[in-house]
């Protein structure tokens, strides 16, 4: 065991992949510049050269499409989008092409491409520099969506994503980069076998999150103990295909559910988790109506006063959970 920060864990995953697999290369904007992607890719271009770490023109669509094309020819490219907002230019390559390729061609070809997209919000960045659109992508069959909440997952799920034979959207969060935790050695996992994990055991309520929202749940759980509430925290980790067993079993035990998500409310991840859990458990186990803590259905503001009201925080989660009792 050793201490490792989330941002550095991502960098370690890149190094592990680049060291172990000659078919891996990275393409995207800002890869030769330290500020674009925080601590997560520092000096990789110097270590592995510009042929494997390709800083790119401002062409999200073509670069993502090119990665899909290279994947169809046996490579395992990682496309980096330093902000999720810009990823929207690449929707066709991801949603129409990569996600459908195996199915629509009868399972004869498959693009093993990883699209890494960073949620980068706060700091008055506003409506087009703040979005967390993971739920959109999790709606698309054929596209695996991964959202790590811990340094170990940030590293091991990136490795699993790149070595997965399907297209994967890997979503990491700048608000987690400084999170430091104990990590073990690299564990090579099959992404198809990965599912939600209980991060904290509790008996009174189930909190469900993914990525940064899992951190909010963990912090809220700590505070809730002061009120005598023992919260169980489930980290979804893989949003698509969504495996509901772990959260549903937890809710069956606790009888209370609060889902926390950094995306919008309507047709969002939180609503999907609530519906899927309840379909499975039935209403009788519920001791209170389920709750969700999400962004309000509004674009991100800039002014710090509005930002503070916009993003869920530990207090918002704690208040919501208390309403279940």
């Amino acid at each position, binding site marked *: 065991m050793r201490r490792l920060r989330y941002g550095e864990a991502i960098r370690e995953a890149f190094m592990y992949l680049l060291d172990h697999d000659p078919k891996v290369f990275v393409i995207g904007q800002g890869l030769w510049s330290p500020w674009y992607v925080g601590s997560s890719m520092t000096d990789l271009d110097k270590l592995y050269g510009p042929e494997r770490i390709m800083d*790119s023109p401002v062409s999200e*669509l*073509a670069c993502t*499409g*090119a990665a*899909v094309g290279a994947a*169809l*020819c046996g490579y395992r490219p990682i496309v980096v989008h330093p902000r999720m907002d810009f990823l929207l230019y690449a929707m066709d390559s991801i949603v129409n092409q990569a996600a459908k390729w*195996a199915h629509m061609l009868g399972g004869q*070809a498959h693009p093993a491409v990883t699209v890494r997209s960073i949620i980068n919000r706060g700091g008055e960045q506003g409506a087009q520099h703040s979005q967390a659109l993971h739920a959109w992508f999790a709606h698309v069959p054929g596209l695996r969506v991964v959202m790590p909440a811990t340094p170990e997952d940030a590293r091991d799920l990136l490795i699993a994503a790149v070595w997965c034979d399907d297209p994967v959207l890997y979503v990491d969060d700048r608000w987690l980069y400084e999170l430091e935790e104990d990590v073990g050695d690299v564990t090579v996992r099959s992404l198809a076998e990965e599912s939600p994990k209980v991060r904290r055991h509790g008996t009174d309520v189930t909190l469900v999150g993914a990525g940064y929202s899992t951190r909010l749940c963990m912090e809220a759980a700590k505070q809730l103990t002061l009120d005598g509430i023992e919260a169980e925290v489930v980290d979804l980790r893989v949003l698509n295909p969504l495996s509901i067993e772990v959260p549903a079993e937890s809710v069956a035990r606790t009888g209370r559910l609060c889902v926390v998500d950094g995306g919008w409310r309507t047709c969002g991840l939180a609503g999907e988790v609530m519906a899927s859990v309840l379909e499975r458990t039935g209403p009788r186990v519920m001791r209170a109506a389920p709750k969700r803590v999400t962004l309000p259905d509004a674009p991100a503001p800039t002014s710090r006063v509005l930002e503070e009201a916009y993003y869920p925080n530990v207090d918002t989660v704690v208040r919501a959970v208390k309403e279940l009792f």
Partner: protein
Amino acid sequence: MSVQMHLGVLADPSRGSEPVDIRGEDPGALRAYLRKMVLIRRAEEIIGDRVASGEVRTPCHLAIGQEAIAVGVSASLRPTDRVFGAHRSHSHYLALGGDLEALFAEVLGRDSGCSRGMGGSMHLYAGHVGFLGSVPIVAGTVPLAVGAALAARKDGRGDIAVAYFGDGAAEEGAVHESFNLAALWKLPVLFVCENNLFSSHLHISLRQPGDRVARFAEAHGMEARTVDGNDVVAVARTVRELVGRLRRGEGPAMIEAVTYRWRGHVGPREDDDVGVNRSRDLVLWRRRDPVRRLADAMASARLLDEESFAELQTQVAEEVRDAWARAEKAPWPPREALLSRVYWHGRGQ
């Protein structure tokens, strides 16, 4: 230097109906071109007939009248090249050597189809001959071909990628981004623009300020040629030269082949009632028939007589009929195919 915006005589339907120039070409190659063009035409005619009768439901975009382009391009390709098509790709698939019966089974939605009955006419696959896939999202595969070219360069065996697209795709941002990437990184990708002057019902004059698509490639510093797309020899010669450059690592290139589709945007009808000048021009474009023009040239050079041409057509017609009959008897995809192919090898379901 000013931009050459217009095609000029190449787009003039009253010109270019003479036999093609076959001087210096290998007779065996010419016979192969002719046979392939006839095969594509007969195959698409039967598909069109079966769309009309209701037996085929998947949207079929027919390339009748445009056969020379795919045949001319494919003559310089090898199975390790990486070819991507679009919505009108039966010809691309067949010209590369994709299996006829598997194409028919695919448009019929059968399990033995080239995409296992999961794709229909608009999603064809024949990896063993280098046809990596076709899609109907306009320009959707152009960036994929750029990536396949990047992979080919990394592989270092001189393979190339080919992106087929139409004049309408030149109006998509994806094409311009792709041109920029390919030119910047000097990737071995051949952009093949089949300029048939129409995107669906809309003539190019209503969509672009010029009708010569090669100008966009030139703007990216790419080697670009505009040729008569109904002249299989001109296409084959031009592609041979461009592919040579590509295999030597001299960067991307484009061929714009000017042509005209005889049928509507989708389906078997001629659609002579839609679009600017279509009814008048179609009559003239039929005189530029790529099959007839090659056959006439070969007849003049005593490489073909009417009898052997008729025999060739009969043989192909039989081949097509037999393949269709077998495809019609093929089984439907199993119900589990609905979910088992969403993820590779069905994992994760």
